[in-house]
Every structure is written in C-alpha cells, then in structure tokens.
C-alpha cells in the first residue's frame, strides 16, 4: 500500500505517533476490552480467578417478557371488584417467586402494565433499572437533540448580524459551555431546591404568589425535565458557534440576489440559508445525539439516579455497577449495549441525511 501518505511522510507519522499511541491505548484497546470483559465474570477486584461465562451477563441484563394476568374471580367465575369498582389482580410476585409453574418468569420484576380488556399485560424484566435507564436516556436524547439544535440555530441567526458589539453577545451565549458541567449541576441543584430555590422564588414573584413552590428534583415527574433544561442551557452555546460558522460559509451574493428579487425573511431562510446549512445540520445533530447518550455528570451530582429511577441513565448505571458494586463485567455489558444503540442511531441518521 505504498502511497504518498505512507512513504514520503515520515516526519508526519512521527509527529502523529504520540497522539495515535495514546488514542490506541486509552480508547481503542479498552473498547475491545469491554467486549471481552462482558463475556466473563470479571470483578473489580477479587481473589477468585476470572471465568468465561458467555452471554449470561446479557441474559441477566436484557431478559424481558410479558406476563398476562387475569383478574381474580370468585367461586362462581365472575370477576371480583373492590370498593372503588376496580378489578383485583393477583400480585406479580406470586408468579415470579417460588412458583414452579412459571419458571420462565422467575426472578423478574414488573416494569409497567397495559390493560387489554380485563386482562393485565404486565411487562416483566430481570433488570428493570436497566430498562428504565434505557428509556430515560432515549427520552433525554429525543427532547434534547431537536430542542438544543433548534435553539442554537435561532441564537446563531441572531448573532450573525453585523451590529456593533455583536461579539459581546456571542461571548455571553458561549460562557455556560466554558463552565464545568459539575459546577453547573451543583448550582442548579440549589436553583431547583424545593424549599428556597431560586426558580421557585422567581416563578412565585412573576405569578404574584399564585405559583406554589415545587420540589423539581425530588418529584419523579419533573426531575428528568429539570435535568434536560439545565443540559440544554449549558451546551447550547457550543452548537451556536458551529451553526454560526456554517452560516458564514453561505455566499453573501445569494442574499443580495434574494433581496433584489424581493424575497421575505422566511423565504430567504427557507430557500437560501437552510439548504446552505445542510452539512452543518448533519454534524450538529450527530454530535448532539452522541453527547446526549453519554449523560452522566449531571445525574451523578444532582439526583444520584433520581427519585424512583426517573433520572438514571445508561452511563450512570454502568459506573454504579462497575465501580460502586464492583461488577465490571455487568458494567461492560451495559457499555456494549450503549455502543450498539448509538451506532444504530448514528447509522440511521447518516442514511437519512446522505447526499443523494
């Protein structure tokens, strides 16, 4: 494979070697190592030798099934109802624990249930916390990716104007990115505080006392939303700068031509700006998606997995299991699953946005 790149560029290779070496040692090798470890029973430290266990880590992690439960009936066969008129169902634990008639559900726990007529279809899984983290992570990405990209685009359109002092605004919008995410999380933990938090005070002031203070991070319904808002605020400046660079590659003659033709602002955006930003849009969406899947620092500092697993994410679970509960092989299995999910979504995005 003798090409100009490999043969007459020795100095270039020599300069790149330290960088390549470090990337190989700290990113590429651990990447393959994670695949290997997830097939063993490796502990963080243990006097027992490591054994090869095949796919049992994945089986423990991903086992999910549906259990159909019929409502309780009395002796005659008609359904029983409690005082409120609701149907009564036997508890799931009677099927999943010490019940030899249902060995396939042994050790599983209820995740959620849907009602199909009178029957309750209960989704049971061996590792409900993992599935909840997967759901939380996907919910986070689904909201943060479009909102953050859209908000960054609006901001970049605003700061792309040739006004005096526009650089001050660019700096102000970019400043949250510079602050460490851990510091931002700590600050927002105080802002979101249910007793004396700044957010409750401001909302109470703006609504003339009608708004009652809420415990934003202590309520399973609002905790993840609070984390999303904080994450968007912190990272929007970074993507604003990327959009800005894309905007500035659009030739100004196009804009002159459109103003001569009498195009409105919306038409200018739709027919000139947006097509010119296509490549930037692909980059921004892919980068935001990948960064959003790696959500960890905010959770670790603010909610520790959140009230009733409402803010736990895949990376948080991997760290908790690998380091906290000393189960490196389980954490590696989660990492591999996360990798496959991100790879699938990235490939889908690339396919959708490919140049035809």
């Amino acid at each position, binding site marked *: 494979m003798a090409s100009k790149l490999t043969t007459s560029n020795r100095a270039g290779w020599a300069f790149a070697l330290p960088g390549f070496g470090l990337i190989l040692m700290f990113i590429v090798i651990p990447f393959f190592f994670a695949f290997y470890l997830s097939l063993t029973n490796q*502990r963080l430290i243990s*006097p027992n030798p490591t054994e090869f266990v095949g796919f049992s880590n994945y089986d*423990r992690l991903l086992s999910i099934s549906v259990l159909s439960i019929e409502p309780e009936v009395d002796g005659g066969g008609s359904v029983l109802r409690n005082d409120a008129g609701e149907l009564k169902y036997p508890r799931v*634990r009677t099927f999943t624990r010490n019940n030899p008639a249902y060995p396939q559900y042994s050790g599983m726990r209820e995740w959620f249930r849907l009602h199909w007529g009178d029957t309750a279809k209960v989704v049971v899984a061996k590792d409900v916390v993992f599935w909840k983290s997967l759901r939380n992570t996907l919910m986070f990405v689904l909201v943060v990716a479009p909102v953050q990209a859209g908000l960054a685009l609006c901001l970049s359109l605003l700061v792309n104007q040739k006004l005096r002092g526009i650089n001050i605004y660019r700096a102000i919008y970019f400043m949250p990115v510079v602050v460490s995410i851990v510091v931002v999380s700590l600050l927002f933990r105080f802002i979101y505080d249910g007793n004396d938090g700044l957010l409750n005070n401001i909302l109470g002031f703006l609504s003339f006392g009608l708004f009652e203070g809420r415990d934003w991070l*202590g309520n399973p319904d609002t905790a993840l939303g609070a984390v999303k808002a904080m994450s968007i605020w912190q990272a929007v400046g970074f993507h604003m700068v990327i959009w800005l660079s894309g905007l500035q590659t659009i030739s100004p003659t196009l804009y002159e031509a459109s103003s001569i033709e009498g195009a409105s602002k919306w038409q200018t955006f739709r027919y000139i700006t947006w097509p010119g930003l296509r490549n930037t849009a692909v980059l921004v969406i892919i980068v935001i998606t990948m960064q959003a899947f790696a959500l960890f620092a905010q959770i670790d500092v603010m909610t520790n997995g959140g*009230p009733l*697993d409402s803010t736990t994410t895949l990376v948080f679970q991997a760290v908790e299991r690998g380091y906290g509960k*000393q*189960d490196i092989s389980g954490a590696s299995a989660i990492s591999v699953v996360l990798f496959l999910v991100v790879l699938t979504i990235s490939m889908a995005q690339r396919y959708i946005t490919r140049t035809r």
Partner: protein
Amino acid sequence: MRLGMKLTAALAVSVSWVSIAAAETELSMWYHGAGNEAESTALNMIIEDFNASQSEYRVSVESFPQESYNDSVVAAALAGNLPDILDVDGPVMPNWAWAGYLQPLKIDDSAIEGFLSGPLGYWDDQLYSVGFWDAAVAMVSRQSTLDSLGLRKPTVDNPWTGEEFMSALEAAKASGNFDYAFDLGMPWTGEWYPYAFSPFLQSFGGDIVDRSTYATAEGALNGDAAIAFGDWWQSLFADGYAPGTSQDPADRDTGFIDGKYAFSWNGNWAALGALEAHDDVVFLPAPDFGNGPKIGAASWQFGVSASSENAEGASAFIEFALQDKYLANFSNVTGLIPATASAAALTDNYASGGALEVFFGLSKGQAMVRPVSPGYVVSAKVFEKALADIANGADVADTLDAAVDEINADIERNGGYGH
C-alpha cells in the same frame, strides 16, 4: 587543586546527609478525614509523638475527603499503590481483607485488651484492623420537648416500644410546634443509610442478609418482619412524620438545634454541637420494635496494606497509637466513644458523670455490628437504594424482593464470598 578539594568535601557531605536521612524508613499513611480540623490535629499529635519516640520509622499522613476515600483506595489497590497504613470503615474491612488489600496486624494481644468489640476488626479469625473509637446513634431530643408533649423518658433498660414511639411522633406532629416530628438524616446518602437504618430493620426482626450462612438474603430482607419494617418506614414519610429524600442538607445539620424537629436520629459525633446549643439535650435509646432495641456499631479502623514492605513498622505505629491517652484525646476532640473503659475515664465526656456517658451504655447494651461479610459492600448499596425507593413511595414488597434478588445474585457470582 583547592577547587577539587572543595568539591570533594561538598560531595562527601551531601552523600553523608543522604545516608543519615535514609536510615529512617518512611511509612505512608492514608486517612479519610480531610476537612476535619479536630481529627487531623489529634492524628498529627500521635504521628509526631511516634516519630519522636524512635528513629527507625517516620510516618507521614495524607488526608482524603471521606466520600471519595473508598474509591481512592480501590483504585490505588488496582494500581498497586497502596500506602503502608490505611484506615478502613469497619464493615468494609472484610471485603478488603478478602480481596487481598490488607494483611493481619502484628500487634500484641495486650494492646487490645479491654477494647469494646466494635473497634476490633476480625475476619477469618484474624485481626485485620483496630479502631480508636466506636460510634453510636441515639435519638436526640430535649427534656423540654418531652415535658411539653407529656412523654416519659425512655432508658436503656426500659426503652420505648414501637407503639409508644409512634404515639410520641403523633404528639409532636399534632402540637404544631415543629416542621417535622422526626429527622432521620436522609440527605446523608452513602454509608449512613445502612448504618443508621438497618438497626430499625433488625429491631423488627429482619436483617440485611441471613447471618447464619451469609449465602442469601431471602427471608431476612423480604420476610414478614422486613415487610413490616418497610411499611413502617414508608409510613414515616407518607404520613408526614419525617422529611424525605429531598431534605436540605443544611436542615439536617442545624434543624434540630433550630427547633425544626422534635426528635433527631443522629450519631454522637454531632452530640457536642447539640450540647453546646441547648442545655437540656437528652440522648434517648432506640425504640424496641419487637426484637430488642438496636443501634449500629463499628466505625473507622486502622490496618496495614498487604503490599506494604514495612509491616512491622506499620503495626508498631498502630500499637503505639492505641495507648489510653491518645484514645482519650481523640474522643475529646471528636465526641466519639473511646475504645476502652480506661480511656473513657480520662475523657471529658465519657467519664462517669460526663455529658455523653449514656452513649457508652447504649453502645454496650444495644449495638449490633453490620453483617461481617465481604459481600457487605454490595448489599449496603442495594439496601440503601431500597430504603430510598420505599421512602419515595415504591411498593414495599416488590422493592425488598428486588433487593434480595440482587444481593443473592451477587453472592452467587462471587462464589459465596469466602464463607
């Protein structure tokens, strides 16, 4: 010529300086008390005395913040960088001994004579760690509160029953003078949850793991007694007797002193602060929920790392530090229970008639160590999450079942943890 002689003389002097310094072996030591001025001063006093008393070893200490201490030690063990002497939390010690981080101590039996059982860390019938103190938990309240609510004062021999305790909370809630009747300290996530709350579980008759075999938690953590505990635990928050997991950490530190809470479940490390604020503070024993009143035991202890090349010196330092005068000094500055009765007599607070003397009796009468097993590291985290989930309203039986499954699976994956 003269320059050559000067250089030779300087070289000789510098080499001899090195050889003098090399005669003292450096012992590195890690301690978990960064940020704690009083403990650091007390520990430094012991180190200086030890360094001055002999010329063979020289101890130097490095302090870590308590929250990240365990993770730092595990990371250092993996990298092979453990210090000679390190301190270890009592219930975590079996895990580190089983994993090969610690070696048995080489100290005389006479040095540990008369010690409370909590500060002695035994695993596999060998002594791996010794602590200077034991820590106890009590229900902190004020005599004026008891009088105004019309409650009798419980004693170690005659504690409150579960029903008496709940009616005391009900009276405190009904009086309207307090934000909450009972402050449990929910913001202190980490080891506080198993240490402070598993005694309640044990008082109901359950336990974190079955201690007869240490092979399963089935029946102990999800039996009828444990479910009764779970229902009681959930009712504390659902019925508004205690602030939940969203309690402000600042409220935990000063809320009882400020009068926000009628009763506070707190350890004797916070007792001195309460005593300074009010003069009628009383330390009440844990209530008896049916299986006897229980409180936790065993705190931080000192051990020698397995990879240390100076095990004799490290053990010598630990033996030196176990003298009564140092135990008494540590107790005076921290407020914790000294490990021997003879040291207690030298302290301000634990001598007879001292303000905290009652804790000595609580520790002797009610203390129960956490499960002595290498699997404790995982079961503690699982138990902590179960408590937080139940406090937040999750189904009690399902949560305890899930905790049992997780603990059992972990024990099985580790081949029984050497039991």
